[in-house]
C-alpha cells in the first residue's frame, strides 16, 4: 500500500536536557482542595531533599498565570530541565503545563503530572498523615519517571484533502456540499442508482410542508453540478483500510469493476431503516388494511380525489398507532431478530404521524381519524402546532397506559381496535376503523460490513456511537471518521442536516492544513534489541499498526518489528509480550515503570 509521509514536528528548542538533570517539583494547593488534607509544605520539603531535585515549591494555584510564570522562570533562569507537577488530574491541566514548558523553551514532554487531588486528597480525607505520605511517594515516583523521560516530538501525518461520504441520502448530500464549500473535495459512495435515499419516499416534510422528493432533487442537482463532488452510484464498499489522513476505500461498481478511493477523512451517512413489524404485530401482514406509516404515506400520495379508496375499499376512518417498534418494554414486547428490544424513542414518528394525519384530513376532510399514543413527543421547533392542528381537525386521541398495548382484531370486514384509555378515566375503548396505520420507528441500517472494516463503535441500541454526545457529538473513537445523520440514532431531517454540517466542518478542519498532528505516545522499536520473534504483531488490535519487516540493521539484514505511528494507539500490548524489551511506548517505557515502582516500594 502506498503510504503518506509521516514526520515529526520538532519541539525541542533548548538542548539542555542532555546536561545533568535538574528537576523542579511544584506542589499545588488547588485552593485547599489538596492542601486541606495533604501537608503540601511537608511534601515540598521532602522532595527538595530527593536526588536530582533542584527546586521544590508549593503554591496555591499552579495553573494560574503566576504559577505558570514560576515554571517558566525556573527553566529560563535556574537551568531547570525537567519538571514534575503534583496537582489535579492530568485530564484538566496536563496541556496547560506542557504549554508552559514549551514557552520556556523546554521540550513539553520532559514533564510529569502527578495527580494528588483525585488520587490522594479527595479519597483520603480522614487520614491526613497517610495522605501526605502517599503524596510524597507518588511525587518521588514522578521524579524517577521524568528522569528517564526522552524529549518527544508530536507526529504529523500528511493528509489527502478529500472526504469520502458513505451514503447519498439527505445527510450524505448535505455533508458533501459542506465539505465542498470548505474548499475540499468530496466523494459520495451510494449503493443505489439515485441520490436522496429515504427522502424519495417521504411524502411532504415538516416543518416546511415541501415535497420531500423535491428537496431531494434540489440537493441532488446541487451535488451533481459541483465540480468538487464526485458521486459513485451503484457502488458497494468491499474494504476500508488506512488511517486518518490516508484512508483507502475499495469499491465494487455495478459493472463488476473495482475501484480504490483515497480519502483523508470518512463521513458515514448510511442512514436508518424502518422498523418492520412481525407478522401479526397489531395485525400487520394478516390484513391488507393494516399498513406501516411509510406504506400509508405512499398510498395517500397515490390516492385520487373524491373518496379515499384503498385496495377497492372506501376508507371512512383511519387509526394511527404510535410507538410501533420503539420504546419497547422487556417482557411486554417481542424482541426482534437480534434478540433485542428497541428501548429508545424514534423521535420523528410522533410528528410524522400527526403531519400525515393532517395531510389525510386536508385531502379527505370526512375521514375520521383516531390516534392511539402513550406520549405525544412533537418536541421540535413549532412541531407542537401540528398536534394542535390535528386536534382542531377533529382527530380523536387515545392515550394508552405505558405498559398496555392496543389490540387489533378482525371481525369479517370490520377492524376493531381495543385499548385502555387514560384520557377516558382508564376505560376500555373499542374503536371501529377501516384502516390501521402503524407508526414504525427507526432501526439501524444493516452496515455490519462497514462496522467490521472500520472497527466502528456501536451503542447498545445498535446505532453508531459518538465519543461524547455533547463534547464530540459527530466523532467516533477512530480518528478521522465522522457520523452524519440517522446512522447515529433517530433524528429528523433538520437534525440530520445539522449533524451533517458539523461532521463536514470537523472533517474539513482536520484536513485543512494538509497534515494531521497525532500524540507521540506510540510504540517505538529498538531495532538492535529486536529478535524478530513475531510475538508482538499478534497482540496488536489495530490492523496495520504493527508489522514485521526485513531491514538492514548494523549492516545485517534482519526481521524487525515496524510501527506505523499513525495507526498505533499506544496501548502497550506489544510491550507486554516483548521479552528483550525491544518495543516500548514512547513516554511510558518499562524502565520508567520499574523506577517508579522502586521509588514507591522503598518507603
Amino acid at each position: 500500500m502506498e503510504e503518506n509521509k509521516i514526520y515529526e514536528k520538532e519541539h525541542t528548542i533548548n538542548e539542555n536536557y542532555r546536561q545533568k538533570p535538574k528537576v523542579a517539583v511544584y506542589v499545588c494547593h488547588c485552593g485547599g482542595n489538596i492542601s486541606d488534607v495533604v501537608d503540601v509544605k511537608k511534601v515540598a520539603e521532602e522532595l527538595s531533599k530527593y536526588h536530582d531535585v533542584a527546586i521544590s515549591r508549593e503554591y496555591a494555584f499552579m495553573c494560574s498565570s503566576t504559577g505558570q510564570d514560576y515554571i517558566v522562570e525556573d527553566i529560563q533562569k535556574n537551568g531547570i530541565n525537567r519538571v514534575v507537577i503534583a496537582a489535579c488530574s492530568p485530564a484538566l491541566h496536563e496541556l496547560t503545563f506542557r504549554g508552559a514548558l514549551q514557552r520556556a523553551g523546554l521540550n513539553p514532554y520532559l514533564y510529569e503530572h502527578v495527580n494528588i487531588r483525585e488520587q490522594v486528597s479527595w479519597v483520603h480525607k480522614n487520614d491526613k498523615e497517610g495522605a501526605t505520605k502517599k503524596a510524597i511517594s507518588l511525587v518521588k515516583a514522578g521524579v524517577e519517571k521524568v528522569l528517564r523521560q526522552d524529549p518527544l516530538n508530536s507526529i504529523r501525518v500528511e493528509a489527502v484533502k478529500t472526504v469520502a461520504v458513505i451514503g447519498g441520502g439527505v445527510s450524505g448530500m448535505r455533508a458533501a456540499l459542506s465539505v465542498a464549500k470548505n474548499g475540499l473535495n468530496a466523494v459520495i459512495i451510494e449503493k443505489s442508482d439515485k441520490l436522496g435515499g429515504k427522502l424519495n419516499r417521504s411524502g411532504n416534510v415538516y416543518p416546511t410542508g415541501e415535497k420531500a422528493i423535491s428537496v431531494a432533487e434540489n440537493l441532488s442537482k446541487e451535488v451533481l453540478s459541483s465540480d468538487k463532488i464526485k458521486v459513485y452510484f451503484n457502488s458497494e464498499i468491499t474494504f476500508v483500510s488506512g488511517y486518518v489522513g490516508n484512508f483507502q476505500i475499495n469499491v465494487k461498481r455495478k459493472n463488476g469493476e473495482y475501484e480504490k478511493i483515497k480519502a483523508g477523512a470518512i463521513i458515514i451517512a448510511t442512514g436508518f431503516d424502518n422498523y418492520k413489524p412481525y407478522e401479526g404485530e397489531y395485525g400487520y401482514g394478516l390484513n391488507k388494511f393494516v399498513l406501516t406509516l411509510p406504506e400509508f404515506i405512499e398510498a395517500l400520495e397515490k390516492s385520487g380525489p373524491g373518496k379515499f379508496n384503498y385496495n377497492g375499499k372506501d376508507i371512512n376512518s383511519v387509526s394511527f398507532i404510535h410507538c410501533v417498534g420503539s420504546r419497547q418494554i422487556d417482557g411486554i414486547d417481542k424482541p426482534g431478530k437480534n434478540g433485542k428490544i428497541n428501548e429508545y424513542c424514534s423521535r420523528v414518528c410522533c410528528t410524522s404521524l400527526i403531519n400525515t394525519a393532517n395531510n389525510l384530513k386536508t385531502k379527505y376532510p370526512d375521514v375520521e381519524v383516531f390516534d392511539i399514543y402513550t406520549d405525544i413527543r412533537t418536541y421540535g421547533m413549532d412541531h407542537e402546532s401540528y398536534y394542535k392542528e390535528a386536534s382542531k381537525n377533529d382527530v380523536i386521541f387515545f392515550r394508552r397506559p405505558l405498559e398496555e398495548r392496543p389490540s387489533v382484531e378482525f371481525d369479517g370486514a370490520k377492524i376493531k381496535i381495543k385499548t385502555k384509555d387514560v384520557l377516558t378515566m382508564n376505560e376500555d375503548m373499542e374503536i371501529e376503523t377501516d384502516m390501521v396505520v402503524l407508526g414504525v420507528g427507526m432501526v439501524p441500517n444493516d452496515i455490519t460490513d462497514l462496522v467490521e472494516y472500520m472497527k466502528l463503535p456501536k451503542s447498545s441500541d445498535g446505532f453508531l456511537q459518538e465519543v461524547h454526545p455533547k463534547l464530540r457529538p459527530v466523532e467516533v473513537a477512530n480518528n478521522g471518521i465522522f457520523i452524519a445523520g440517522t446512522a447515529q440514532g433517530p433524528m429528523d431531517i433538520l437534525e440530520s442536516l445539522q449533524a451533517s454540517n458539523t461532521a463536514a466542518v470537523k472533517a474539513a478542519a482536520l484536513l485543512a492544513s494538509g497534515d494531521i498532528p497525532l500524540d507521540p505516545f506510540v510504540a517505538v522499536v529498538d531495532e538492535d534489541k529486536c529478535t524478530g520473534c513475531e510475538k508482538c504483531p499478534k497482540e496488536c488490535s489495530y490492523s496495520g499498526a504493527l508489522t514485521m519487516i526485513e531491514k538492514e540493521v548494523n549492516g545485517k539484514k534482519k526481521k524487525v518489528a515496524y510501527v506505523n505511528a499513525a495507526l498505533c494507539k499506544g496501548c502497550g500490548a506489544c510491550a507486554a509480550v516483548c521479552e528483550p524489551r525491544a518495543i516500548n511506548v514512547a513516554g511510558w517505557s518499562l524502565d520508567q515503570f520499574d523506577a517508579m515502582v522502586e521509588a514507591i516500594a522503598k518507603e
Partner: protein
Amino acid sequence: MKVNTKFIKEVKKYGAFDISACFNCGNCTAVCPLSKEDSSFPRKMIRYAQVGAEDKIESSLEPWMCYYCGECSDTCPRQAYPGEFMMSLRRYLISRYDATGLSKFFYMNSWAQNILVIGIFLVSLIFFISYNGDFQELAAKIELAFPAYVTLAIFMYVFTMYKKTILDKSKKFLFSFDFSNIKETLIHGLTQKNFSGCSETDWTRWIAHLLVMSGYTLTLIISNLHLLEPLKKHYGLLDITTPLVFYAAFGIIAGGFVMMGRRFLKKIQSSKFSHPTDWLFVAMLFLIGISTLTTYILNMAMGPDAEAVAISYKINIAIEVAWIIIIVPFTKWIHIFFRPMAIYLYNLKKEKQLA
C-alpha cells in the same frame, strides 16, 4: 365503551364549536371551584363527548352543577372554551329531556322560534282586540290555563331527567325524603347559591339573575293566581298589588338590562357567546316587564275603563301567551328547575349509594 364520533358533532350544534381543540390536560377541572371528586367537570364531560359516550352524558348531573364562572375558559391552554361547552351541554340535555323534540328544533332553527313567537303574539293580539266579550274574564281563563300547561311541561322534563339519571340505573323508583336534602334543594332553587361558588363571586351576575328570577317568579304568581284585574279594578298606590307589580317589573327590567348589556360587551366568559335563544329570552323577559308595568301605571292614572289600559293589557297578555307556550318549556328558562333538581338527585344518589 364503543367510540362514536357522531356524538360530538351533534353537541357542537348547540354551540361547543371549539371543543375539539381540547387535549384533555384537565386544567379546567383543576381550577373549577364547583367541581367535586364525585361530580367532576368539565374535563370528564368533554372527554365523554369526544369519544361519544352519549349514555354517560345523558345520565350526568354535572352539567347542572356548573354555573359558568368562566375560570375554566380563562385558564384553558387550547382556547377550547370548556365553560361554553358546559353551556352547550345544558342546551343539548334540555333538548334530549324534551320528549316533544321542539327544543332541539328551536335550538337548531332559532328563526323558526322567532317567527313562531311573533306569530303567536300577533294572532293572540288580533284575537284579543277583535274579542267582543268580557276580556277580563277571558284573560282570567287564559292565565289560569298557564299553570296547568307549565306544570305539564316541567313534569315531562323532570321525569325524563329522573329516568336518565336515576331510574335507568336503579331500575326502581327511589326518592329522598331527607329534610336536609329538601332544604338544600329549596335554598339552591331560591337563591341560586352556587353563584357564590366561583372563586370570585360575580355579584352583578348573581344579583341580576336573582332580580330577574324573583321578578319573573312574582309575575308568574301575579298572573297565574290572576291577582291583577286592570280592566275591572282601579289600582292606587296603597293597593297590595302595587309594590308587587313594581318590584316584579323593576326586577325584570333592571336584571334584564344588565344581562343584555353584558351580552353586548362580551367582557365576561359567560356572556361571550350568545346563542340566538339567549337573545330571545332576554328580549321577551324585558317586554313582559315593560308591558305589565305600563298597563298597571296606565290603570293607576286613567282608571280601568280607559281604552289605553285595555290595549296595553291585551298586548301584555298576548306577550305572555307567546312566552308561556314557546319560551318557557323549550329553552333556557328551564335551567332554574334543572339546577335545584340536580342538587336533589345528586344527594339522592349519594343517599342511595348509586354509582
